[in-house]
């Protein structure tokens, strides 16, 4: 059973050692460039020229390709087909699919949309594969992100698998009392209620206890916080971040003026 929801792969690489904020800014920059930047081929260039080389730099190319293939390609492929077929466009028709026209313009549009989505999701995959969520959150908290907000994010990653395990226990318990959870659609919907009740009410009780537990550890203390992990923030990190900001401005400018 998996006990946590992280994609993080623990390797030693330059990408892993980069400050989490730098990586976050990079992801944001890729997305901004892909969506705002000029040129039809820019998102493709970002994928081939930046994101894939970075995955090599981070020594996580195998996991990266695995994740993109399983998570991203089906979605992007579906998007490409749907947009090609249904995006309204008056340009030259390439071929007809049954009664639908597939034109040059709609294929171009579909490709652009699909490559943009590809950039967005795969750069996030890159971030998640090389950055541990607790490191990311403690770095952001150190920079002024609300501790409660960071808590909500990291605890969700941990508690969701726990809730799934509990849901399975409840399903087993109810089945052993004769609840029929298999069969037709209606049967399944009817079986849902005795499962959801204990799960939701049980969780509400847990929330109070967990609140006491973290209060007992001074979670809401007004004292300045400190951090267990030393997260380096080098001159290179700062330069990289400002370069990213510069690139976003260039892309914005190009978008407005070209």
């Amino acid at each position, binding site marked *: 059973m998996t*006990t*946590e929801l992280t994609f993080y792969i623990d390797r030693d690489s330059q990408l892993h050692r980069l400050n989490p904020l730098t990586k976050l800014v990079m992801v944001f920059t890729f997305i901004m460039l892909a969506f705002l930047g000029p040129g039809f081929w820019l998102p493709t260039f970002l994928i081939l020229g930046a994101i894939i080389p970075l995955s090599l730099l981070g020594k996580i190319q195998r996991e990266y390709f695995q994740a993109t293939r399983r998570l991203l390609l089906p979605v992007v492929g579906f998007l490409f087909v749907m947009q090609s077929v249904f995006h309204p466009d008056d340009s030259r028709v390439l071929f007809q699919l049954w009664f639908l026209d597939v034109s040059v313009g709609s294929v171009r549009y579909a490709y652009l949309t699909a490559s943009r989505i590809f950039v967005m999701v795969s750069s996030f995959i890159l971030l998640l594969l090389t950055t541990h969520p607790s490191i990311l959150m403690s770095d952001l908290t150190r920079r002024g992100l609300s501790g409660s907000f960071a808590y909500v994010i*990291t605890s969700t990653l941990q508690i969701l698998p726990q809730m799934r395990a509990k849901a399975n226990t409840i399903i087993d318990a109810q089945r052993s009392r004769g609840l029929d959870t298999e069969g037709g659609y209606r049967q399944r919907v009817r079986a849902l209620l005795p499962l959801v009740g204990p799960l939701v009410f049980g969780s509400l009780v*847990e929330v109070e206890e967990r609140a006491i*537990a973290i209060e007992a*550890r*001074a979670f809401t*203390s007004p004292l300045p916080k400190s951090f267990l992990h030393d997260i380096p923030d080098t001159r290179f990190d700062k330069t990289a971040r400002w370069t990213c900001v510069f690139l976003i401005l260039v892309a914005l400018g190009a978008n407005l003026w070209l």
Partner: protein
Amino acid sequence: MALVEIQNLTYQYPVTEKPALKDINLQIEEGEFVAVIGPNESGKSTLSYAVSGFVPHFFRGDIQGTIKVDGLHSRESSLNEWVLHVGLAFQNPFNQISGSKFTVFEEIAFGLENIGVTREEMKKRVHEIMEMTGISELGDRSPYALSGGQQQRVALASILVMEPKVLVLDEPTSQLDPIGTRQVFQVIKEMSARGMTVLLTEHKIEWIAEFADRVVALLEGKIIAQGPPHRVLTSPSLREQGFGFSRYTAVAEKAREQGLWPQDRRLPVTLDEAVDGFTRGFDEN
């Protein structure tokens, strides 16, 4: 002055009909180990919350009387100050895991991060407390991938690392198996031996008899008896009010009716005392 001083405390949770604690007077000296017994709904947990500041700061409700702990006064101080003086651990180990940390080491450091302890000091204290609670080898594990006994020791360590003056434990072993129970009690015993002031609510009477300096019996929100463990735990009048004897006491009582337990000997509470009494009985025969 006593470290914990509760005077005429009456407390009622919001939207309840009657008070959970009625006119409680309790003093606990520094270094003392006080155990609280009582049936369910007798106010044990509420008393734990009162000493650890969650009553009234977290639960609100109506409060009369005063609670003073380590120089803090319930009316004048906030929960954030209070938790630096009193540590609280309770029944369910799973719900005491913060959920925001991915390893045991980080989990234990969580409280120290919140109060701004420096990194070097933090690491030193976490290592020390992990050694003391016998979980040194678990540092890199996920706090969720542990047994109940291990999880409860992580919860204890997470509180102890903050170095409170008073440790409040609300049935810390009620959801643990016998092995987990023994492991947790070993930690409690060690803390008490080091001079920590402890307030423990517990159903497992045999364990109380071994550690406690004083036992307080609660019934329907009132203290109905308190004193040395033997006097309270073998009191016939308390038994009539629904407080169980330990199995050793119960056996010896039956044996006394049969003439198998020396008449002049007090009833035992622990296994050792029972064995001692029975073997002496046989010697005399």
